């Protein structure tokens, strides 16, 4: 009796797993009948991260796109797949989905992942996946070359660019006033940032300066910390095909971290170690506890935004100031610049495994149509879109984004678009973590070089 029960149990398992497998097999051809089912995935979620983008997809794109396709005689159902997690986790989830031949038909990714995704076959050139429609898209004519470059790998376009961004120093004008600092503050060297930090500290500001550091903040440490500092000291990650090791600019950048976190009290070393440190830095800035914060325009439109931000600041427009990131000393930045910044941008890609690549591309293009972008950016959700025609109309009403588009974008720099970058980025984050926890900049730079040699294939590819 018992034996029979067990056998029955085993049989049930076998049958069930068989059904499960066939079930999986069928789900990929996108439903039955004439209905075309599409999914679109982003790291955005209603009421949470990038809420405005999620609302835009759910409330505008999906109904309008379905109606537009209906007018063409196609029945299309679009489903939005939201996420609200750190970018690193989103990337892990995305690559696992794509690795198993699944994933949404249209998905967003950080531009810097394009190289490694393309190498892995998770992304294919748009014209291979979609056909001629991709090259003939009327939007390309409106997108500047530098932004198209974000979606280009080895000379071919792999996705549609969603926009670009820039990094500035934000400061809290209320705290600045308390410390006797000007409301139109613009530091011209790193020393002037530290001087302002000293005054803020003397005025009792809990965290005078926050420059992201450590591994818990992930890419935010690299983009809003090491790389702008490295550029300010005249350094580049990669030059003439060789990676830069423990160079003087890197040591200077790490030295700046040491000045902030090495016992001066200008920064909060523990915040750099916390699992949710970056989210806390947002809350503290919104709560008038941080004086100076290096962040991208995302802070302004996605975090402090009085309407849709994750750490809303009702008086954002009055009390948040912004300034260009200075070079270490005037003229010492890359290309002899006085001020520097870094830019990146998201991409919207068509899944090579999609059963309906043409419709998926139409959906992606639809989200980036002039009408769509204007809808997405209305009500204070302005961002720098990929299209110059749209930017001309929407940016003028938004002071920070005009500032970024006019002053920052011309002097900005991009990350090297190679597959090894993300591993190099982690090594840089680890170098800052070492400095925050008390190692000397020289030691951290030497450790970085050793890791770098392991990542990029030996000392021959590294110049020190």
């Amino acid at each position, binding site marked *: 009796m018992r034996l029979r029960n067990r056998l029955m149990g*085993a049989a049930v398992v076998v049958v069930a797993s068989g059904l499960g497998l066939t079930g999986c097999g069928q789900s990929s051809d996108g439903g039955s009948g004439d209905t075309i089912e599409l999914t679109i995935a982003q790291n955005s979620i209603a009421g949470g991260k990038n809420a405005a983008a999620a609302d835009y997809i759910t409330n505008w794109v999906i109904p309008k796109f379905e109606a537009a396709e209906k007018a063409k005689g196609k029945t299309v159902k679009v489903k939005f797949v939201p996420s609200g997690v750190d970018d690193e986790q989103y990337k892990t989830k995305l690559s696992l989905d794509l690795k198993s031949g699944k994933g949404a038909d249209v998905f967003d990714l950080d531009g810097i992942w394009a190289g490694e995704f393309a190498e*892995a076959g998770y992304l294919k050139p748009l014209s291979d996946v979609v056909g001629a429609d991709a090259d003939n898209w009327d939007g390309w004519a409106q997108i500047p070359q530098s932004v198209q470059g974000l979606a280009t790998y080895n000379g071919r376009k792999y996705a549609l660019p969603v926009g670009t961004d820039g990094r500035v120093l934000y400061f809290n004008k209320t705290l600045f006033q308390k410390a006797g600092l000007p409301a139109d503050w613009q530091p011209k060297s790193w020393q002037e940032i530290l001087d302002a930090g000293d005054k803020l500290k003397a005025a009792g500001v809990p965290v005078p300066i926050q420059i992201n550091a*450590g591994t*818990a903040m992930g890419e935010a440490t690299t983009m809003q910390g090491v790389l702008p500092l490295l550029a300010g000291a005249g350094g580049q990650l990669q030059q003439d095909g060789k990676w830069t090791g423990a160079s003087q600019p890197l040591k200077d950048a790490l030295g700046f971290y040491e000045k902030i976190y090495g016992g001066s009290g200008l920064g909060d070393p523990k915040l750099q170690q916390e699992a949710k440190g970056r989210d806390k830095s947002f809350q503290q800035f919104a709560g008038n506890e941080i004086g100076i914060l290096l962040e991208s325009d995302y802070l302004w439109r996605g975090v402090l935004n009085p309407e849709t931000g994750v750490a809303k600041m009702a008086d954002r427009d009055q009390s948040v100031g912004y300034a260009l990131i200075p070079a270490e000393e005037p003229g010492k930045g890359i290309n002899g610049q006085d001020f520097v910044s870094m830019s990146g941008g998201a991409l919207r890609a068509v899944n090579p495994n999609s059963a309906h690549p043409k419709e998926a591309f139409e959906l992606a293009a639809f989200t980036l149509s002039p009408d769509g972008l204007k809808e997405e950016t209305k009500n204070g959700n302005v961002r720098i879109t990929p299209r110059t025609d749209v930017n001309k109309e929407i940016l003028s009403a938004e002071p920070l984004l005009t500032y970024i588009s006019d002053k920052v974008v011309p002097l900005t720099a991009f990350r090297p678009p190679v597959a090894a970058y*993300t591993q190099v980025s982690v090594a840089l984050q680890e170098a800052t973590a070492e400095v925050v926890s008390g190692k000397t900049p020289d030691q951290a730079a030497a450790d970085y070089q050793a890791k770098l040699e392991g990542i990029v294939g030996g000392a021959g590819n590294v110049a020190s």
Partner: protein
Amino acid sequence: MAQATLPPEVLDDAKARRYSADAAGLGRLRAGAFVAPALALISLFLVFPALWVLYLGLSNYRLTGAAAAAPQSVGFDNFVKALTDPEFWNSTWLTFEFVLGSAVIGQVVLGFLLAWIMRDRTGPLKRIVEGLVILAWILPSAVVSFLWVALLDRDDGTLNTLLHSQDFAPLLDHPMLSIIVFNTWRGAAFSMMLYGAALGNVPPSHLESARLAGASGWQQLRDVVFPHIRGHVLTNLLLISLWTFNDFTPFLLTAGGPDGKTEVLAVHVYQVALQGGELGYGAAVSTVILLINLVVAVFYLRLLRSKK
């Protein structure tokens, strides 16, 4: 196996052999047919994945990049890298601390104390205590971790509010201690229940005799109770050591931080394989973890057997 244990004289007698080696009278083929589904399932879900992990460990397979599309064999490089990587040994040491602190000492001692104190009690007190302890055990990890983060958080944590302290950050200043206390609290229920059942098997007459002979509480525990529950203690140790060894929940509290101070092996594998994308190297580390698990299991099973 069965044949090898047969005495030689039985082998001579074909008829006797058939009866003793094939007690159910099914014959080789039919017996094989009966175990085949089980063997197939075990192969599919246990043996094959284990071999697959071994195979992956010999390659430079990655989550993204060129090595994701066309992984290449790298021989034993991953294993050499793991065994020479200070981060791996750091994680192994942290795991050892975690198992020793939270399982071998924390859960066993707390679980036994609870079972010992509650052994003769009845009524609502016992039921409330047991209910609360078991509640800590059965709540989903995600929920429990969130509660503990809310308790220990540096800025607005409950603990800081209760103590009226500023900036007391256990998860940052004493991360290992925090996850040890957490896991002790979380897992004590299993030991408590197991010891509770074991203590019920200690004959009251033995304890009575010991008391009459003037044995102190400690002596009773050592000379009467412990010999009776020795098997339970070892089984319990084996189970909770292995569970704790492979536990991923600390990640939900500290994410392996700060600066890798709580990056136990389970978290380390997640970090290198999924966050870092090095699936091949992660597979090699997993294989080493599997071997460590086997060593621990064999050690306990030996101890368990030696009681006879």
